[in-house]
């Protein structure tokens, strides 16, 4: 089993590399927004292809491992790794979106100090970090605890959306900036969704229970 175990370890390693790249991309994109740093934003866009490559590589490794007909926890690990890599690739894409929009925002004066967006970003990133730590440390309880937090991020996104809408109506000259901010908030909301997906996959990996689409970290009826 040594060779197969090594191959599984290699798959896990690639996934963790992908995870830290995705988290770094989001962090950088928010930093680019807050500091109005176009160079940093450009880096985020350029580095997205690394995530795309890793997703393809992990899928390739996964298929080869599946062809060896693994069972039980090995089988779950491989299928979960393939799914998590897809979520991480999408997180990278959202980071790129945030970076693009921050470049546009830096062309005009800043509307007001950014408070809610960095807060949303922190929440989403903590969710992602906790879900990935749960994966690394085999802690499905920690993963389950991530899921209800998605609602908070959704509410914050909606609140921001309402505020920005009012702003746009009052001051039409701010429309472009408000729309860009709305897109950024939406991207962060999606990142939280992806973190939730990762958490659900981690529960499946360690407990073989499918808790998707229940919204509260509960099990599917059997």
């Amino acid at each position, binding site marked *: *089993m040594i060779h197969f175990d090594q191959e599984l370890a290699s798959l896990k390693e690639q996934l963790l590399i992908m995870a830290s790249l995705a988290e770094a991309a989001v962090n950088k994109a928010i930093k680019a927004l807050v500091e109005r740093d176009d160079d940093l934003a450009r880096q985020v866009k350029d580095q997205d292809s690394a995530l795309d490559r890793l997703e393809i590589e992990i899928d390739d490794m996964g298929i080869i491992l599946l062809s060896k*007909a693994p*069972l*039980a*926890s090995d*089988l*779950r690990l491989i299928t979960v790794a393939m799914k998590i890599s897809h979520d991480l690739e999408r997180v990278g894409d959202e980071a790129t979106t945030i970076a693009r929009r921050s470049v546009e925002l830096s062309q005009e004066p800043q509307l007001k100090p950014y408070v809610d967006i960095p807060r949303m970003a922190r929440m989403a990133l903590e969710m992602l970090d906790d879900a990935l730590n749960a994966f690394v440390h085999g802690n499905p309880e920690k993963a389950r605890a991530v899921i209800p937090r998605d609602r908070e991020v959704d509410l914050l996104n909606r609140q921001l959306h309402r505020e920005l809408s009012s702003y746009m109506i009052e001051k039409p000259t701010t429309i472009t900036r408000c729309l860009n901010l709305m897109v950024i908030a939406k991207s962060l909301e999606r990142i939280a969704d992806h973190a939730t997906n990762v958490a659900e996959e981690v529960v499946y990996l360690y407990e*073989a229970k499918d808790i998707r689409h229940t919204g509260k970290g509960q099990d599917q009826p059997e």
Partner: protein
Amino acid sequence: MNAAMTTGEETNFPPARPGPQSAPVRTDVPAPRGAAVAPKTAVPALAIRRLCVYFGANQVLKEVSLDIQARAVTAIIGPSGCGKSTFLRSINRMHELIPEARMEGEIRLFDQDIYNPLVEPVIVRRRVGMVFQKSNPFPTMSIADNVTVGLRLNGVRTRSVLTERTEQSLRMAALWDEVKDRLHAPAISLSGGQQQRLCIARALAVQPEVLLMDEPASALDPLATAKIEDLILELKRDYTIVIVTHNMQQAARISDFTAFFYLGELIEFDATRRIFTNPAKKQTEDYVTGRFG
């Protein structure tokens, strides 16, 4: 050679009935996980309770209890020496052919105690057919004669019945099209895979209710194996099948339930999909992922 093929006096043990078995509709949801006993359908094909088998002083099976569901495939897996084949042979009383063999416990075939002293083993072996790892057609007989040997030994002489049953059995074993034009050719002229299907036809000809298979495809190439597996999936519509296999993926492909044995004990018994995606016991997990020992 299945020792059912001798004439014997019928006892009060009712003979096999052809066609669909008197079994209830199969459900797919087994009993709570970890239970040693399978789903609580009305009458299991086989109800095994506290089965112990000894060869001399050596205890080979230890207090095995489980229900084998009718018209389903149950796979028996476990490392060499765990008692799988002994378990199989105790179901049709073939272990009795081994000197110093002794059993305790109970096995009921559709609620009839097959170890009742009034029951003749040969009758049991007619209702519970067996196919072995190494196919064993009678080398001096033709294909057709191999199929009907059990019937003829049981006194069936009518040519039309024999002919009809030959075709029926060979069709059920997915061999008819390949041999219909050479039924009188020697059985050993067939390929390995065909010989194995011939042995299945031979077992089916006496219209058993249960079919036991001891690694039926392990000596065959992948294509022949695939044909046997397909055949098993067809046969389970009408027969209860218990199959011993070393090949976990085979068990995952064709069985509905899987029993994991180790050192003579039944460690875990559950729906196949659970055993192979999320077994309850660490020993089972270690065995199916190849990390045993």
